[in-house]
């Protein structure tokens, strides 16, 4: 009898572990990362969860690039040539720095989601700069969502350029972005 109960409890344990694994196995989608500005002006960082990706309508990843494959960096622009001098060096924590930079001067409660697109080399005045192309999705403190592409410095995480911003129609009452201005005489 005791053995029977032990077997049942063991089975429950196995089933429970299986369920936990299945429900959590895709919970961290490797290529998206979440950065959130807290009420105390701190930044929290974690791999994006399924629930978060659902909120920003992120596509479900169908293919992952194997982590052990060394990325080949593509030159940007016309000047593809041998570069002997670089003005920066890639840092492993560039994405974390980028997340912090994106949340600078932002309101508490803002979330940004970063997805890597490619690593590149930008030629500036004959020197190379390691850069990262990313997709950034933001949910503002008011719950509005925007996306754009960005180019970030691979060492400092500083945003160098942005483009491909979302085109919103906003058919209803258009949001009033009016600002109060003081005349100068």
């Amino acid at each position, binding site marked *: 009898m005791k053995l*029977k109960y032990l077997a*049942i409890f063991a089975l*429950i344990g196995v*089933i429970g572990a299986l*369920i936990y694994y*299945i429900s959590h196995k895709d919970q961290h989608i490797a*290529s998206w990362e979440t950065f959130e500005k807290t009420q105390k002006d701190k930044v929290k960082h974690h791999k994006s969860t399924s629930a978060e990706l659902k*909120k920003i*309508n992120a*596509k*479900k*990843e*169908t293919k*992952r*690039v194997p982590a052990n494959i060394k990325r080949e960096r593509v030159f*940007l*622009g*016309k000047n593809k040539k041998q570069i002997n001098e670089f003005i920066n060096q890639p840092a492993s924590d560039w994405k974390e720095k980028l997340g912090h*930079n*994106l949340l*600078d*001067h*932002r*309101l508490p409660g803002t979330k940004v989601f970063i997805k890597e*697109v*490619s690593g*590149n080399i930008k030629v500036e*005045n004959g020197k190379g700069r390691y850069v990262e192309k990313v*997709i*950034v*999705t*933001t949910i*503002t403190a008011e719950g509005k*969502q*925007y*996306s754009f*592409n*960005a*180019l970030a410095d691979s060492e400092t995480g*500083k*945003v160098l*350029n*942005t*483009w491909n*911003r*979302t*085109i*919103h*129609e906003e*058919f*209803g*009452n*258009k949001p009033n*972005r009016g*600002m*109060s*201005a*003081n005349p*100068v*005489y």
Partner: protein
Amino acid sequence: MKMWGNKIQTLITALCLVLLSSCVGDLTSVTSSVTDLTDSSNSGSSSGRSNVGGDNSTRGVNPNNGRYLKDNPIALSGNNNLSANENLGKYLSRNEDFITSNNQLLESCSAKGVTRTNCHGVKSASNANFFSPSDNRWGFSTTTSYFRQVQAFGSVRDIINKFHSDLVFSYNYGLSYPYQTAHPVNLFSSSNPAFWFKQNTSLGIDGTLLTYSDCDIDDNAFFSPSRLEICLGKLTVANNLYIVSDPTVTWHEVGHAFNQIMLNTRNTASGLTFVHDTNLGYQFYDEAGGIGEGLADFFSFYMNYRGHFGEWALGRFLRASRPMEENDPLHAPGVSESTPGRISYPDFVPYDPNFPTERLEDIHYSGQIISHFMVALVKSIQSNCSMTRENATQRVMHLLMETFAHLGDQTALGYDGAPEYTINHSPDHAHDWISTVNPINFRSFMQVFSKYFKYTLGNSSLNHCNGGAFSMTTYESLVDDYGLLLFKTYNENGNGLVNGHAGINTSVTPSERVKTVLIDKSYLKLDSRPGKPKAFIIDDQEDISAAMDSLKASGQIASVSGMIDPNFAYNNGNGKISPGEVVGLSLSLYNNSNSPMAGVQVLANDWDHTKGGKPCNTFEDNWPLASEGAADLTSGEGVEGGCDFVTEYNGSNTLAEPNEELAPVCFVEINETSSTQWYQQSKLLTKIGLDSSYCLGGSDSTDDCFVRAIKGADSANYSIIDPKSTWAETLVNENGVPTFNFNNVIFFEINPWIPPGTVFNCRMRARFTNCDDCFHDEDNGNDNYKDKEFSGAKPFRVINFSFTVID
């Protein structure tokens, strides 16, 4: 005891079964088989234009088939007062439609024998899975999400097929006839097809355009070029009212995607990896954005040949639909297809036909000028060339494809085999030219579009207009009716350094410019009327915080200096410029002419106006005096580095132009022992003994150490300024005061280390679209200025604004 043991055993077994079944639910494949057995689509009603006599349930259609609406319910029913609860199934056609033979709403697209796999797909929303119906039967009740997904798929698929078919026509035409087509020869390369979004599987970039039919946003739809997504939301006015049920809106959104593709065909086909894609519109309001919206509306006409967009989703419930023909009943009295009645530039820039007495600065309203012109041109080609409506529309689309391939070109060649850069300065600076320095506006769009018209339908050597050529006089007259004859030549010779003023350059017939008014830039100036403000300052903490948050959120600006408090604590809202603030500056520009000015732009980006670090005083503003620190003109003039020499490389080629430089707009006044002098800001750094690490841009950026325009917010756009008025007097709200949006303001960072009392002068540049000498070089037969000139002063009105930083 045994009884309780059995009960516990039973309970545990049941629990295991429950847990196991939920586990199985997680383990099922990503698609689920769906069968809709309902038949609510067939109400048996005899009202409406088309009835589903058959059964639109899943079992009621053949495999691979279903049904979807071919236009919006208002158009299909003929009932402008259709109820929100209307059974949309009444407007499905009796015949079944082929949906797809794939088991998901995801398919390839092909053009000219080249196939792009996973070209486009549809899901309901969020991170949903693709669904698969039983036996691949795509029939569903119109009240279901499954139907909405099929609806979206059908609408998107239809316009993609037509677009690609017409792109092939345009490409073949361009390569078959002797004119400079902008189409790249490898537009349909199998290894790098430029007729769709880029795909790079090794990087995980699938290039698939996904449409979400039940997107979780209210009264909104959007196109995201970064994520290649179209989001069709829900209307809040009623339950179960989805934007996807209006195909004209779906086509509008896909139209934005097509604009993106067309602008980047040459960039994609080049095989180079550019830093950015070319976009259409970079601010909340600018003319490129207006053109984009007008063309997106036109993509609705492109599909159904109806001169009205959004009657169901926008018009019926939100009073926000838009006409594309002057004879539309929605238009205000006086609007007509006659010359004086056309929706013309610039008068109709702020016009909303739903609220005709209001004047609103919005890209959707200014875009109507373009949409109306495009529809009118289709009709004109039909009648003048005896073409069918379909063929005429195809020809107009061909012109648009050529125009955008040229205007968006970041290789800067403009066409294959060009001997030099003819557009957008050069590859290194093309993005700056397109986004800020010389962006697409109503003038540039119409000039390039008209050039291709002249090359094709207007070409008497081709005779493609009913055996002859479309009269260019007639064409110019139509363009002028819309106030869009803003160019004096067709600029066939481009904007290049060497040949920009050489070769063929056909002039527009001056007598055809009757309605269009070109104004000298001298009529635009800083308001100097007594008692009137010369500028407006925004420095309220809440306003600035919200502005910076919004501009960063949308990606318009990349960053704010680390020297600025993260909460903008120094912003005190006193209407003055104080250390540590971010301030918004809106110059009060006065239109001293008798005609409206439109597309007014003020630039605060770096430009070529110094020599040896000192400000040149050789421009129209005559600032500063020689005694106040102006650059020395006694030597080094007429060569690179001189005040009279404009950099040919935008200051970035230190080998070819070692003495040429771009300088920030703001200078600082420093009292020397014998005089007051104007200097670049690095001088103040030295004077107050501040370490360069305290500069707004860090140690490497000392010339804008103390006052710096935020990149991305370093230009301002104003849609229209009435005669003898300022913008603030032209567009006022119901309270009679202007509403400043982000595009009306240039945002400056003010270093907290500035000593109070320091005086700055910012020398900015201004221009407007219907300006004569902002674009026409009268020293070269009114040809376009060469691209390089936009690094300097010639195409602009130089505007100085001085201020004192106070505590």
